[in-house]
């Protein structure tokens, strides 16, 4: 007998949080992405040959958007939850008549909002600048949402496990960033030596980057349904894990 008001308030609180901190949460990631486009696209890109018939700058844009989505969804949920653990306001939420799934979903919705905002702005700005029409709205949208949820959930698990602020930053720097970079944001894995190609295809982020690139540009390296199924399944699993952790009170209930 959850009340929708409770859930809606949690979501409002999440939006309120990142909107208040807009200078930290929205502007920097957009600036970073635009810098990437500027450096890799306009200045270095000229010297790089076309990939799958697209100029280098266009080739990397979907991956850059995905990277923005992933990093920001992760940042949003992990910061929000870790801060709430830190100032103990999380205890107040846990003592309130709210279901674990409502708390998790609200955090994830916050992650989705920020992820989509960053990813959407990145795509919109760059595609408009380059006068490139979007190939498939539904596929693009699917992957933007999917990535936001997945990394939102990852952020939740990270924040629950983190003993210090540093360990969250470490996850982002040493796990997420390498996985995204090696997931084919900046190159086609077909250009890689065989061994690296094989290593790349066990990286789940490769499928997500490939999927969103199909959505934006219509080119792909593995069949679309592989990417959709794999990333969809992984996302559901991680979401279920988050809800489960809240249900058992992992690191929440003493």
């Amino acid at each position: 007998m959850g009340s929708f008001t409770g859930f809606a308030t949690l979501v409002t609180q999440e939006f309120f949080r990142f909107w208040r901190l807009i200078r930290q949460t929205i502007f920097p990631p957009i600036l970073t992405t635009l810098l990437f486009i500027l450096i890799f696209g306009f200045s270095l890109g000229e010297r790089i040959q076309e990939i799958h018939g697209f100029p280098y700058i266009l080739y990397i844009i979907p991956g850059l958007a995905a990277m923005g989505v992933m990093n920001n969804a992760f940042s949003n949920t992990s910061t929000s939850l870790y801060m709430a653990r830190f100032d103990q306001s999380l205890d107040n939420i846990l003592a309130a008549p709210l279901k674990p799934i409502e708390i998790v979903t609200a955090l994830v919705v916050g992650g989705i909002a920020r992820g989509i905002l960053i990813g959407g702005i990145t795509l919109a700005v760059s595609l408009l600048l380059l006068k490139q029409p979007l190939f498939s709205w539904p596929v693009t949208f699917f992957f933007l949402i999917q990535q936001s949820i997945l990394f939102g959930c990852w952020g939740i698990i990270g924040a629950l496990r983190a003993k210090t602020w540093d360990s969250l930053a470490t996850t982002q720097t040493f796990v997420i960033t390498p996985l995204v970079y090696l997931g084919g944001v900046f190159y086609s894995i077909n250009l890689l030596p065989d061994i690296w190609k094989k290593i790349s295809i066990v990286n789940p982020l490769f499928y997500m980057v490939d999927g969103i690139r199909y959505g934006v540009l219509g080119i792909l390296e593995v069949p679309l349904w592989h990417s959709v199924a794999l990333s969809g399944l992984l996302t559901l699993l991680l979401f279920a894990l988050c809800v489960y952790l809240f249900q058992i009170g992992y690191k929440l209930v003493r």
Partner: protein
Amino acid sequence: MNAIEITGLKKSYSATVEALKGIDLSIPQGEFFGLLGPNGAGKTTIINSIVGLVRPNSGSIKVMGHDIRKEPLAAKRYLGLSPQEINIHAYFPIGNVMEFQGGFYGLSKKESKQRAEKLLKDFGLWEKRKVGRFKLSGGMQRRLMIARALMGKPKILILDEPTAGIDVELRHELWEFLKGLNSDGTTILLTTHYIEEAELLCERVGIIHKGKIVACDSPTKLIEKYRFENKERKGVLKFVRPGSLEEVFVNLTGKSLAEGAKEWEVSRDLQL
């Protein structure tokens, strides 16, 4: 139906730390109940078990007939909690903190806004509604905790050491407020280590010591039963007001809650 019904509650934090050693406690609706005991006696563990922040090893807790493990939402809807440690979001303006709290307990946006305004004014915090809690004094933060606990219109208000760190004048104001709330029908469960607070406010007092409730009755009856008769007042008793709950406490636990007595104990230790 009792407001709170606790049976056989046990909790260990580790193999060596047994916080609660079997608590049985019934608080009828409308009562002003006090848990009196020193820090570390288990007061907070009981309270956190009621709201679901601590998971007991055994025993059951019912809030207005709803088992907190089986129907947590139904149980929590009756409760308003002001914990001992300030747990207010560090950066949100306190006006928003109050309004969000209303929403968590199912109040509509409009109702939350109105109730937040009323409570903030009642607690003298209205002028501060746009600032974060770090811009408030310790006493203001305490009051905010209680105001926030009232946002959800609780039938049962749980206050864990609500007046710790509040100056005397404000403490008396707060006591008046709580008395009024109680006479309007709110059940209140309060923990304290201030003897006076327990004596003055509570219809019944449970004396808690090392994870057990060693006595539970009205202050008058407890004093009647456990006061020292015709005994030479030496040692720690020198600091104890005759015919007070403090005396009861000393009798039951061999220890004192009063500051003066603590100093005396320390000085005795030093001499040894």
